[in-house]
Every structure is written in C-alpha cells, then in structure tokens.
C-alpha cells in the first residue's frame, strides 16, 4: 500500500468537494478498493470515505412505492430488509459476512465488476441510480466491464428500486472467488418481465431480451425451456468456464430463477 491521506466528510456536499481534489478516490466499504491498494495496483493520494455519511445510509420507500436504498448502505441491511425479497435474497449471498457488513450498494454499482451481483438487480429491476448531480436509469447506467455513466467525482447517493410482483436471483458461483460465474435476476412487473445477467458477458451486465419477451407472455419455466440459450460469442471464456458454458448457464439459471419466483 502506498501512503495516502483520508478525508471523512460530514455531508454529501463536503464529499463532492473533497473528491474534486487531484487523485482523490471515493472509498465505500472498501471491499474491492482496499485489496487493490494493498497490492499497490492503485495509488490515490486521497481517499474520501463515504461510509460515515449518515444521509447516505438507510432504506425507505418513496411515494411511488419504490424501495430507496442509501448509497452507503451495507449489504447486510439490504439482506435484512425483506420488503423486496428478490433483492434481499441477492444481498444475503454476496461474499461472506465480513463483505456484507462492510460492502455498500453504491460502492458495488460504482465499481460495476462484471461478476458482481448488484448490477443484475439494478438492471433487472429497472432501478434509478441517484447521484449527487442527477438521476440515471439503470438501462443507461451500465456501460461495460467496470464502466458506468458516472462522471469523475460523482457519488451514488441512493438507488431506487420499483418493487416487482415476483422476483428471484440465481447465482452459479465461480468456485474460487465465489463471485457469479453466471447470475440471473428475474423480475416480473405489471408491464413486463426483466431478465438481467451478470458474470457471463465480456460487456458486463446485460438484459436477455429473448427471455424477457417469452416470460412477459408466459411467466413460467416452460417458457424459458423453449428458448435457445444466448450465443456464447462475447461471453467470458476463462479458467472457470467457456463462453458456451456460461451461455448455457444463463438459460439454466433463468429457468431456475423463474421457478423460484413463481
């Protein structure tokens, strides 16, 4: 680890100001950033800790009935909430207890690891990512592996999830890291079904539109069984699974998520 200073701002406004400094880096729960620093793979001169910002911690519902989760809320709180069962189920299986107690939803979405769980929930729910500057629809937010619509120094203050009629997340773990080798989030809303896939694609989290169409017409595992698996082209091919295997798992996990949701 290289030497760095740490700032603990008391408000979002102060945090934004601190992040305007040269080589400043936002620190959420630190579950990705701290190991990166320890390996000397990053060298920010200033860390701005968002974990202590009370205005960014907590869960509530807005007037539209959406579940609103503060950006610095740890996974363990989302897991315990229960008002959006598919989302709480997903949060309860991220990492291990240490990760769930420290890691935050804002940190996970800002990092956008292609194998992380939360991006599947946000995209699969059509969530709204709220920052200190604007609101971003999930469909516009995820822009590829570790790429998002966030600007330099922009902070995720809140994430708003419309609560679906039925939902489920199925994760098939990469055996070593236990991140998602393939994770599928399925959510059924009155106006249609959304299916978001993490872990599989070289482009990061994506929506499997063929499955969405089939499931919007008939929300059942049979509807998934009748589909061809997505193409293995563009899927991640590594030590733990070929692109074709991941593509196959997308279909299997989608079917299982639908079965679990119904």
């Amino acid at each position, binding site marked *: *680890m290289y030497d760095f200073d740490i700032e603990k701002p008391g408000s979002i406004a102060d945090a934004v100001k601190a992040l305007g400094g040269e080589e400043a880096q936002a620190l959420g729960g630190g579950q990705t950033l701290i190991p990166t620093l320890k*390996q*000397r793979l990053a060298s920010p001169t200033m860390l701005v800790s968002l974990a202590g910002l009370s205005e960014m911690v907590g869960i509530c519902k807005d007037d539209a009935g959406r579940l609103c989760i503060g950006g610095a809320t740890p996974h363990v709180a989302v897991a315990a909430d229960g008002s959006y069962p598919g989302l709480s189920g997903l949060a309860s299986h991220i990492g291990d207890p240490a990760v769930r107690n420290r890691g935050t939803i804002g940190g996970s979405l800002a990092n956008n690891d292609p194998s992380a769980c939360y991006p599947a929930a946000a995209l699969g729910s059509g969530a709204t990512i709220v920052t200190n500057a604007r609101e971003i629809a999930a469909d516009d937010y995820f822009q590829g592996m570790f790429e998002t619509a966030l600007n330099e120094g922009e902070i995720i203050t809140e994430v708003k999830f419309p609560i679906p009629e039925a939902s489920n997340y199925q994760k*098939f773990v990469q*055996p*070593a*890291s236990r991140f998602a080798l393939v994770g599928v989030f399925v959510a059924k809303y009155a106006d249609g079904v959304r299916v978001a896939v993490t872990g599989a694609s070289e482009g990061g989290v994506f929506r499997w539109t063929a499955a969405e169409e089939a499931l919007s017409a008939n929300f059942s595992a049979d509807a998934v069984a009748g589909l061809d698996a997505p193409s293995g082209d563009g899927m991640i091919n*590594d*030590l*733990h*699974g*070929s692109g074709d*295997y991941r593509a*196959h*798992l997308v279909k*299997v996990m989608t079917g299982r998520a639908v079965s679990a949701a119904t």
Partner: protein
Amino acid sequence: MPKDEGIGASSKRREDLRFLTGKGKYTDDINLQGQAYAYFIRSDVAHGTINSIDTSAAEKMPGVEKVFTAADFEGVGGVPCGWQVTDRFGEVMQEPKHPVLAEGKVRHVGDPIAVVVADSLSEARDAAEAVEIDITELEPVLNMKDALKDGATKVHDDLTSNLCYDWGFVEENRDAVDAAIKGAHHVTTLELKNNRLVANPMEPRVAVAEFDSSTDDYTLYTTSQNPHVIRLLMGAFVLGIPEHKLRVVAPDVGGGFGAKIYHYAEEAFCTFAAKAVGRPVKWTSSRSEAFMSDAHGRDHVTKIELAMDKDGQFLALRTDTHANMGAYLSTFAPSIPTWLHGTLMAGNYKTPLIYVNVKAVFTNTVPVDAYRGAGRPEATFQLERVVDKAAREMGIDPIELRRRNFITEFPYATPVAVEYDTGDYHATMDKLLEMSDHAGFEKRAAESKKNGKLRGFGIAHYIEACGIAPSNLVGQLGARAGLYESATVRVNATGSISVMTGSHSHGQGHETSFAQVVADMIGVDEAQIDIIHGDTGRGPMGMGTYGSRSIAVGGSAMVRATEKIINKAKKIAAHLMEASEGDIELKDGAFTVAGTDKSVAWGDVTLAAYVPHNYPLEDIEPGLEETAFYDPANFTYPSGAYGCEVEVDPETGKVTVLAFSAADDFGNIINPMIVEGQVHGGLAQGIGQALVENCAYDENGQLLSGSYMDYTMPRADDLPMFNVDHSSITPCTHNPLGVKGCGEAGAIGSPPALVSAVVDALQRAGHTDVTHIDMPLTPDRVWAAMKS
C-alpha cells in the same frame, strides 16, 4: 474400553490450547532487535534474458540498506538438489545450477532477480520499484512433450536438452512387459493428467536470520519441516557455514504438506544478507509470492496400459509418464516421479510384470516437488482409474475385479522392487462396503434420479510406502541423505522427561502422541513429558517430517532411546533395592523386585541418577539421558479402501460429494482422534485436487491461478461428513510400535474414488462414451464431458 492415557488413547492435543487461543509462536512472530526487511523482486515473465539491472537509484532511497543481485552471490553455491536419479541408460540426470538470485536469465514467473533490504517493508517495496531491470523475453517452454522435441527452446542453455532424465523401471522387465501386453486377451488403455497443485499451507513461508560477528554464529528461524536438513543443505552446499556455527530453528509451523521440506533461496538469502548488512534480516512471503515461489505438486501426464486374461487376471502393466520438474530441481524433485511413484505401481495387486517409464522435463514454471503423498497419489490415481476402466470394458464389477487380483499372501515382493510386510486388502474392502452401505446404493440412486440428479459410486484401493526410509536402500537409489530419525530422552532429576525428537510437528500433534508413547512405556503421566522439536541447537541431528514417517521412524527412535533409559533405570533400581537387575520390573511408574513387595518409585530412581550418593558409580555413569538413532529396515505399507458417492447436476455439471468413506489399515494406532483428524485433512486435500484445485499457466507462462480469486481451495461446504475407520489392523512387522503412518493416505486414496464416482454417475445416465474426465472435475468440465 478406550484407554485414558498412553498408546491407544484419544488424548486431547495439548498444542491446541496455544494454537486455538492465538498463543502459537510462528516464525513471523519472531522479531529481532534492529532487523531489516527483505523484499524480493521477482520475474514477471516466464523466460527471459536479463540484459541489465540498475540498482543505483534504489540504493539511494530512504531506509535502504542494500540492494542485492546475483553479482553479490559470486562464489556462493547454488540451491542444491538432494537426490540424483540415474536414467535407464545408466547415465545420471541433467542437473542445472539453481542460483540464489537469477543469473543472466529468468526461468519462471516468480524467479527472484534482486532483493532490497531496508529499514521497513514499505521502504523496501518503494525502493524495489526504483530498481531498473531490462529483460528480453524468450519463448517460454511450457508443454512437456513439445519441450522434448528436437530444436525446442531450452530452459537451461548449458544442458543438452529439456530432459532431466528418462527413467525406466524395472528396465530389465521392459521386453517381457511389451510381449505380455501384445499377447494379452484384453488391454485397457487410459491417458490422463495429474493436475498441478499449490500446497497452500495456512502460514506462508518466513525466514529471519541473524549473525553474531563476535562469535561467527548464525541463527536462522524458518518455516521448515526439517531444520537439520536445512542446516546441512544451506550450510554445507550454499553458504559454506559449518554446522557448529549455524543454528536453524523451525518453531510452530502452520502446515507444510511437503512445500516446507525444501531448502529455498529465501532462507539462504536472509542468512547471507544478515552478515552482509550487519543486522538481522527478515522475509515474510505474501500469499501472492507463495503461489509463485513455493514448490508446486503433481503435474504428470500419463498413458497407462493394463493387460488382462479373459478372467480379468492382471498380466502386465505399462506406464509412460511425463513429469514436470519446473525450471529448477527442488530438493527432492527427481525422486518423486521415480522412487516414490514407480515402486508403488503394483498397488494392491499381484500383477506379475510392470514397466514404468518416466521422462522428467524442465519447463518455465515453478519447480515441482513432493506434495502430500508425493508420487504415491500419482501412482494410485492412474492405477485405480485404469482398473475402473478395465472393469467396465471387461464387464466385471470393479470391486470384484479388484478382489480377483488382490495380493493375499505376505510378505509379498512386487515386481517393482519393494516388499510389502503385511496387509489384508479384503478386510479393508469388506469394511468399506459395510461403512458406505454399498448394498443400499441402487435405492439411493433411484431416489436421486427422481430428483433429476445423477448418482454415482466410485471406489479406490490404495497402498503407499511410508516410514521413509532405509538409508542404505535410498543411498543406492540416489538419495544424498540418510533417512533415519533421532531422539534424545532426557529424564530430569525429579522424574519429568524432555524428549528431543528429530521429527518436526507442523500440525500433526506430535507433542501429544509422542508423549503418549513414552508415558505408556514408563508408566508415568503424559503431563510429565514434553516433546521438543524444531531446533538444531537442542536436539540431535534429525531428518524431519514428511512421507508419513514421524511415528514410524521418529517414534521408533524415541522407543529405542526410552528402552535405553529403562534399562539404565533398572540398574539403578536394582542397586537401590539391593536386588538382581534381572528381577527388576517396571510397572505403572514404579520398579519392583519380582516375587517381593519391594518397590521404588520412578522419581526416586531418577533423583538417584542425578544425586548419586547411593549409586553404583563403579558400573554406570550418573545421569539419565539417552539418545538413539533409528534406521528402518523397510518402508511401511499402509493401505485402505475408499468409497465416494456423488450426485451430478445434469443441467450444470456441478458435482456434489454426498458421502465419503475411508477404511484404512495404518497398523497400530497411537491416538485414534489424531489419526482421524489426519485422514480428514488428507481427504479434504484429495477431494480438493479431484474437484476444485488447479494450478494453471497461460500460453505465455503467466500463472492464471495466482491468487484465491482463481485458485480454488476446498471449503467446508464442498465436503461431506467423513466416514472414517481404521479398525482393520495388520501391524507393521519391522518397527517396535507396529505402526505404519497415516498422514498422506487421505490425499492418496481419494482422487481416483471421486473421479470414478462421477464417471459412474455419467455412465449410468447413458453417457457411455465418458470413460474419464481430467481433474479437477469442475462443473464446466463435467458439463463438457456430458455434452461431447
């Protein structure tokens, strides 16, 4: 009734109090006054020519004591290899120099190039970034078969090729084996890989060294399974330090599994540097460094052929193996695919003709050496897998085929030069079938099928050669060391006992089980006895712990020394009771005179030895301390039957191990609880190899599985509750305790049982073309096998 104390009792591990409460004293807990910190700069390419190393900027960085390169080690010996194999043409193996720091070339990712020694680790790392190293990358040598082709890039320019040796065993049998295979009713052939593993002890390696310029004494604290061996190898062959000026201490060590047997460059470096900079030098491996610098295990590519007559009687066995040595020869590397592998190819079967060919190959990868089982898992895996395949091809039940070929008469001289003293393979097989409820399998399989899962059962029967090893024999085979063990039993004046053993405990519980043996022999409480190990300054020259040798060889040395103690104590007791020595009996810690009520307590005799006022000084010396060296007459031959029951998810290929049963014959048992723990640990590692662990390189020689993000360790939820039994006992005939050793068995017997179980599950589901899947059986591999 289970005993409360002594041999056969499940005494609680006394070392666990300190281990489980954070009071263990490991090498990294040792901090010496004024110590500096070493940071190793390692190659990030697999193969390259070092054009230049510029340390000038780094030398001027804050806190830097000195930056070392190969230039500082001119005139210093290389890291030695402890075993010289002779090939099938009578030539000795090719043995490259293994410099402490890379000279001219780097040969694997992780090869150390330079070391910064500084006041703090942070300053050392900062300065390391200022060392400018210019390397021209060369084509990496990775595939063993390609490495042996004419014109292949060489790992070592001064060797004639990448071939370390071409070993044939038994060479005289070669033609007869070929002929038997040619004429056989049926030959089953199997090609397989034994996957490369990283040992991953919980405690990474550490070395701390100091030098006293006023006495010329060096002390090295290191994470070693055999500190005396390190003292000999490093002192004599690397740094030229005589033994009386070098003390090597291996304190509490957090797991070894083989990877801490060897003498490593980092130990020699710290010892050398402590003198060079005039202050103690400490190095602690990071986990990332461990992946690229601890010796790896396994990595064999094998073709095996088993010839049978029409009844399934084994007629001949022929194997062709390529064994990866990595870039340099680690301490015992050449012996693993040869003498620890070829000699076990008979397994439990009376196959009359066997020929084993092994080509050991240099590649641009981390050196490969012994890892729990060392050669014997490789032998067992290929043999048990080919027997399983043969059973299918012959239409004979795999258990029946094994039974038809079991060795039943002992001693049994195999065609691969070893003589099994005892065993009862039908007994362990019977026990296994009972433990695993084999009779109920079909019912369980039907249940799985109802749930959409594929259930399979796999079996393996193993033998291993432990209690390593008769020194005269291993000397003939190329070992550059003796493999006896030592013990000093020091009885203190008031009767308590300190035992200095040459064995080293790094998790095995010797402090408990060794004390049980001495307590049992003398009849005193175990609490009266302390076991001291791991310090060349305290005990006699010993050979350390590996190859399941500690109780069989180290324990036997301790028995011999204790016998000497008892004999002398009887003389003292005879004098005190004015009786004839021949009438003295020792029971429950008291000496009596046969046929009388005369008695003298153990403590009175020991006190007399040190306060010899009333003592036969004309006949015997005062004091009560004896040393024994024990050299075994033969290996020991533990064996056992292992059964694995799995369920495969046909949609994803995921394998779930539902049950694992192990029926072992370890000979006599000192502490059943510790033995059970050893088997559990071995099974976890064997299942780890078969199911999840894989050390993989990419086509550039980069380590793909260089951290726990990509190298999978078996976790509790990968494993079933184990069903372990060691009640089938045929005692070893040639050591005083009748023990065989149990440390490696679990890792040896489990991989073939698991793979056979998965193949069985797939075969039952109609995938009749799936006869083998290479380890690890990760979901993607099993899915691909089902799909093919």
